[in-house]
């Protein structure tokens, strides 16, 4: 199996998993669901870090690419840190009695 087909398999299966678990989230928690899933989409930080940290002489080195990746690290970190924090803040309100 080629690596592309592998990745497409992963993609399609993950979509199905997503549909299955998210239909069970009650409407009351839809806002935390959005901010929480938003934090998860900040996973692009992984790609941003690899490109922003490339050393001179390495395969993926280019000054312009590095600058762009640096901004991407900032954007993705805002997403991750802000997303998880604000979701936690909201969920705590739902939890208390």
């Amino acid at each position, binding site marked *: 199996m080629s690596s592309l087909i592998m990745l497409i398999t992963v993609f399609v299966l993950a979509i199905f998993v997503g549909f299955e678990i998210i239909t069970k989230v009650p409407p009351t928690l839809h806002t935390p669901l959005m901010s929480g899933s938003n934090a998860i989409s900040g996973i692009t930080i*992984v790609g941003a870090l690899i490109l922003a940290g490339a050393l001179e002489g390495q395969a993926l080195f280019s000054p312009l*690419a590095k600058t762009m990746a640096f901004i991407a690290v900032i954007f993705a970190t805002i997403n991750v840190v802000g997303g998880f924090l604000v979701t936690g803040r909201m969920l705590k309100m739902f939890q208390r009695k």
Partner: protein
Amino acid sequence: MGMQDLTNIVYLIAAILFILDLKMLAHPRTAVRGNQLGALGMVLAIVATLMSGTWDWTYIILGIGIGSLIGAVAALRVKMTSMPELVGLFNGFGGGASVLVAGSALIATFNAVGAGAAAGDMQMKVATVLSGIIGSVTFFGSYVAFGKLAEFLCVKWKLHTWQKIIKYGFSLVVAVAGVWYGQILGFSPLAIVFVVSMLLIAAMLLMKKDRFPGMNLLKSLSAIASVALGVLLVLDPSNTVLFWVLVGVAGVLGVVLTLSIGGADMPVVIALLNSYSGLAAAATGFVINNTVLIIAGSLVGASGLILTKIMCKAMNRSLANVLFGKMGPTADTPDADEVYKTVKSASADEVAMTLEVAQRVVIVPGYGMAVAQAQHAVRDIANFLEDKGIVVEYGIHPVAGRMPGHMNVLLAEADVPYDKLKEMDEVNATMEQVDVAIVLGANDVVNPVARTDPGSPIAGMPIIDVDKARTVVVVKRSLSPGFAGIPNPLFAADNTLMFFSDGKKAMLDLLTALKES
């Protein structure tokens, strides 16, 4: 087992933690722990990435530091009423990050020392194009959604200083970036497309209205141009200029798609952009061959799509109608003066008297409650009534507010217990046994015309059937129409009392009246 395998195993663990996070969101009791597991997964993925090689740490540490600071301040300081703006903004950062990572990978691959011909297979090329288009639409679309929710885009009134800084600053940056890069490229034909796109975006974001002639044509044109540029980029990926032109044109598409969206359509668009931010991340995963990006991105993509579908269904409209249509009164919409001939207005004392003899009360909040910040005052009324043995519940329409679940977050903030927040179908099932229904700042979602008049713009939209309750109290500042622009016969019904006031003031006056009697 090599380092690469180890990293991938940690990525798998991170993906499992993300799935558990979303799974545990099914109940408020488990949701807090779920969110922590998701955050743990993210930390693991980041640590595994950083341990997998040797790096130039400057940008990494600086980027994470700046991002964490901005993210934390925004998350901890935002008011619950501003949550739609924040989510809109975060969607945009997600889309922007995906575009930049895909673009950076493309440039790195083709500009890198010694990269040569081996680099850049078909998968990477197609994925880069997709990431560029979806990410750019998400970035610019989210900025528009944020600006409209924060009320500084498409408005005629005077802006606060911070609003002016964002509005003019953003347009200026876009315009300058466009001209600067165009000049570097020597204003070649492709560069001109880029410059025009960027100037168009900057200009549209300065408009005082949200529609202009030829808007739907521009939607189609920019969509076709994005795809065409995408094909060109796949055919000649070493021409990295094409990537920027693609991002510019897709940005125009993002702006025109969201610019005319307002009011009750906002939840749909926020959910859709949420989905795009996930799909852009998944596409970026294909660019850099990374499974955790693909899994996390598709989970978010699926989540956003489900929410989009739920929101569309709750308005009985198709997604195409939300994105390309226009909501408004039709030719046979009845005249408001005619409909409102028999409106009865009531004072706080009269409403209090009605409530005192009630056994069951349902409160139906709308966006007006958020605007008036009336959630705490509503809770006080509910507590007072409950102390007298009256059953109080809340009926929440799926599209009430400006984002999915907006009303629930506000009421939770005011310490309203989770089990009192009822979904539309549940509350409708027993509406005939409700003595008093209090409608607070909602309009279209309680308009019985949706059930009765097939020619109405909201025909077939599921509503909360407050008109079937014994008495309806509508708290509203005036008889002005809601988002659909049509009169609401509920306001003139025999069993309806209109309580004309600001939502918060109404609730405070009502509480005083209840305590005095």
